[in-house]
Structures are given as C-alpha cells and as structure tokens.
C-alpha cells in the first residue's frame, strides 16, 4: 500500500474517534491521499486553497480552540514557505498542530527542483519545541501516527507518500524519541532516516560479506534526537556514518554531530551534497545524489579509514 493511503487510513481512524481531530489542505489533498475523506468528514476536513500561510495560522487558531489540526502539503510548501507561521503562530504560541510534508527530498521526482526540499529538517530543527519524525515504511507510519496525535505539541511528519520497501516487522512498536536498532554491529554505526533505510540495510549485508559488521540504527525522530542510543552505538564502534535524503547541512548528520560533539569520534556524511534538486525518477536521482546502495557501501568503507 502507498504510504499516503496508510496515512489517510490513520487520519480517518483518528477523526472517527475524536471530532476535534481536523485536517487542513492547501489544494493538495489528492496528492496527500486524503481527498476521499472530505465526504466522510465534512466537519473535520478543510481545504484552504493555495494559501499555505493562512492554513498554518488557521490551524493555530483551531488549536487555540481545542482542536488538533493536521496540516498537509508538499514538503517545501509545508515548511520553508511557511517557516514564520510555523515558528510564531504554531511553535512560539505552543499550539498543538501537526505539520505533514509529503514528497521529501528527491522523492518529489518529476516535480523537480522547485518542489524538492533538501532543507526542511534544517529549517524546522532550529525552531524550539518542534518534534521531527520521518517514518521509513507503512508499519512505522501506522505506529507513529497515533503517538504523534497523543503527543501534545507541534510536530512535523516528513512523509514519503508512495510505496516503500518494508523494513519493520508487523509487531513493531513505535517509541517517540527512541531510535530503532535495525541491525546490530561492531565495526561501524550507520544512522539513517527515511528513504535510504532499505538501501542502507542492503549495504550492511554487502559489508558483512567483506567482514565489516555495520550497526544500522533508524533515527525516526530527528528532533529531539535519541542522544543516548547515538552515543552508545558510536562509543561501541568508534566509526560513524549518517545517511539521509536531506542536505548534509542541518538534518540528521548535523543532529548526530551535535550529539557526538564531545566524543572525538569521526562522523562521515552521506546525503544531499548541499545542492538543489532536479527533475528525474528516483533511481536517477539516487545516482546523482549518491544515495545508492553501492555508494553507501563505499562511504562506509571510507568511514572506517
């Protein structure tokens, strides 16, 4: 199932259970997979039209009235375009609004560079009180959404909206603020979030054939980062690589570096190399940005030097 379909199902369940759960769109409900919910929840679904600033502040007004709004758009419009509305109307005011950005980084594919946000985590991570979660697959998404709904405060869900490879088992339990160990290892810690997680696991398999045991940790909550797990793994392996579908500046790499600042452990980065996106399909874009399994293996070897 596409991630957006699972996302819409979760929203429907939450709206069914609580009439104070509302969803706001900016003319992208079809892309977000929520168009079908309008008929079923006419008092809980609102399309603000192409006016993201207004959507964010309307959500804050609804939150001040006791509602829990989920606002959704493509990642660049849900974050960098409305950064001040998120900072002031939502975060500074302490409003319980969930922000959903779809098509993060290179997953915007054929929409190209204008619709690719490589900086959304960096933008939001520097806003106090913002929780940032990036699920890897449908299982993790379904587990995360009720937890985010129950969490009182502003949060950002960075949502890949198409089909993904399954990474987590069906009995997976999501714990906010706690990173997930995907593969235990000894020689190198690879911290990964979102899209490249499956490729990173494949890379770990290839490395294992060379006798390199990589520990793979999925950092689903990038802010606040699970410092304890990051430090414990890095101390164990003494070599670190971060892998992300985001600029290497401001995202997971920066968060891991900050956590390890006092550790004197080298941290290598693999992510979008501080450049804008471009149009293309995912395999091409992975190649261009260096987010292929082969390149993860290569970077891992470099990190061990």
């Amino acid at each position, binding site marked *: 199932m596409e991630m957006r379909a699972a996302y819409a199902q979760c929203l429907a369940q939450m709206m069914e259970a609580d009439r104070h759960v509302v969803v706001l769109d900016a003319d992208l409900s079809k892309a977000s997979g929520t168009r079908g919910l309008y008929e079923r929840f006419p008092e809980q679904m609102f399309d*603000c039209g192409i006016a993201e600033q207004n959507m964010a*502040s309307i959500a804050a007004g609804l939150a001040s009235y006791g509602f829990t709004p989920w606002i959704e758009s493509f990642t660049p419009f849900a974050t960098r375009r409305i950064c001040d509305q998120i900072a002031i109307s939502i975060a500074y*005011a302490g409003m319980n609004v969930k922000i959903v950005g779809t098509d993060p980084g290179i997953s915007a594919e054929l929409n190209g560079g204008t619709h690719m946000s490589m900086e959304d985590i960096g933008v939001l991570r520097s806003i106090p009180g913002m929780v940032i979660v990036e699920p890897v697959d449908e299982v993790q998404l379904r587990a995360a959404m009720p937890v985010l709904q129950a969490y009182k405060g502003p949060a950002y869900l960075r949502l890949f909206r198409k089909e993904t490879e399954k990474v987590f088992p069906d009995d997976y339990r999501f714990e906010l603020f706690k990173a997930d160990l995907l593969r235990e290892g000894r020689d190198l810690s690879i911290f990964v979030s979102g899209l490249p997680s499956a490729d990173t696991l494949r890379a770990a398999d290839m490395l294992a054939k060379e006798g390199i045991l990589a520990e793979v940790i999925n950092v689903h909550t990038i802010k606040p980062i699970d410092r304890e797990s990051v430090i414990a793994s890095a101390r164990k392996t003494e070599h670190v690589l971060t892998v992300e579908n985001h600029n290497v500046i401001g995202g997971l790499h920066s968060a891991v570096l900050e956590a390890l600042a006092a550790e004197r452990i080298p941290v290598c980065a693999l992510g979008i190399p501080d450049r804008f996106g471009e149009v293309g399909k995912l395999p091409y874009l992975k190649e261009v940005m260096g987010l292929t399994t082969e390149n993860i293996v290569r970077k891992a070897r470099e990190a061990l030097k």
Partner: protein
Amino acid sequence: MDTSLSQRCLDIRCDCLKAIGHLGVGHIGGSLSVVELLTVLYFEAMNIDPSRPKMPGRDRFICSKGHAGPAVYAALANRGYFPKELLLTLNQGGTSLPSHCDMNRTPGIDMTTGSLGQGFSCAVGAALGSKLEGDGAMIYTLIGDGESQEGQVWEAAMFAAAKKLDHLIAFTDYNKLQIDDTVAKVNDIAPLDEKWRAFGWNVINVEDGNDLLQVSQAVAQAKGFIGSGKPTMVILNTVKGFGVPEIIAMGTGNHNCPFSEQQADDAIRALREAFAAEAAKGKEA
C-alpha cells in the same frame, strides 16, 4: 451610551501612557489609536469573565497588530484581569506583559501575535473553531492599516468569506501611518472599503474611530450582521497617537518612540483636566 464608558476610556488611555512612560519607550502611536475600540469591546460588547479568562464559549479578541499590547494590557487591567500595578512591568525582563501579545503569559490574551498578518488568520481559525463547536461566541480581531499590506491578510479574508464566518468582526486601525512613511506613500491600501467588499465582507466605515459613540454604534451594527453569511470589517478612521498632541505631532515617528515618565505625567494631567472640563460643561448644559 453609558457615561462611565468615557471614564473607562480615559483610564485605559492614562494607564497605557503610564506604563510606556515608566519604561521610557514603546509602541505608543498605534496603542493610543485603538483605545476607544478596546473600551467598547471590553466594557460593552464582549461576553467575558475576568475571573475565568479561559471560560469556554467566551467571546475572543485577537489583536493581530500585536504591538498594541500596551493598550490591550491597560484595558485588561481596567477590566479586572490583573492588578494595575502589573502594567508597570511592561517589557521588563521576566514580565507577563511583553511588547507583543502572548497568550501564554498574559491572562485574557486569546492569541499570540506580533508577526503581522498571522493573528488575523488565527482569528479566522478561532471563528471556524467556534462555528464547529456551536458555542455562539463572537470572534473579534484588530489589524493595522500597514498590516493590511501582508498577503496573508487577504488569504484569510477570502477564507473567512468562503466559510461564511458571520460571527467574525474585524477592525482596521486606519490611522494612515506606518513606520517608514504614510501608508499612502509606502504602498497604498486604498480604497480599503471596496477591497473588503470585493472580498465578500460586510463593511462599516467609521468616520471617527476615536469617537466612543461612533465605535459603539458600529460594533452594535456589526453584531446585527450575524446571519448575513458574511464576516464584517469595521474600518476605524483613527489618529495615531490620539489623545496626546505631542505624540500626534511626531507623525510616522510615533510608532515606537521614547516617552518619559514626565511626558506621561503631563499627558495624563492634561487628559484628566480636559475630561473634567468637558464633564463640567456637560453638567452646566
């Protein structure tokens, strides 16, 4: 009109001046221009209970031009939300009365505002919330004329009309001045009434927005528009710095300027003397 309303208005203006004078600097011009409106809202129009600032179903006032905080605080103190002594902590470190309105610090403040244009959208969101709850609350909001240059204001205007939020009453403090120059010279918003009408709002033009009676009548008229299916914009033609001639004379310079305790004392004395003289004249008549 209740004669005590003009006394309240005088007290709010004087307390606002005292607070800014005590600090020595502040957003004085755009605070003084809206005192009549705040008096009408807090002492006549709004269903509120100062002992229960978070009362469910209460009417709400969202001051989107958040820099008018000093005037709002003076109104809240006079209405009994907190002791007047607190007004003298305005903008001091650790105060609960920051320069711009903050719902998490000040009892009676319904929304955090200051980044222009956003509070107006928040008010529209609150009006939608009230409609969904069916609590019968009125949502009042105030924007500046300069603030009306923000695109977000017009995004929210469109949405409020589309959603038929007729329990939303907005006010524009049309004092014609902004920081850099007159509004007309910087980026003219005229004809303001036609713009709001074109956006699907009822429009009431108040010739003198610093005349209590005119403001009071306009608010009553706006309330009468409930059921019209349209939100209402009340354009208040005001004077920035109203009540203090030396502040008015500063023109665009009075947005945020030094104002000493001595100046405040002198202005308050002049205002109270004029008020007493007016009252005496009224009695003679």
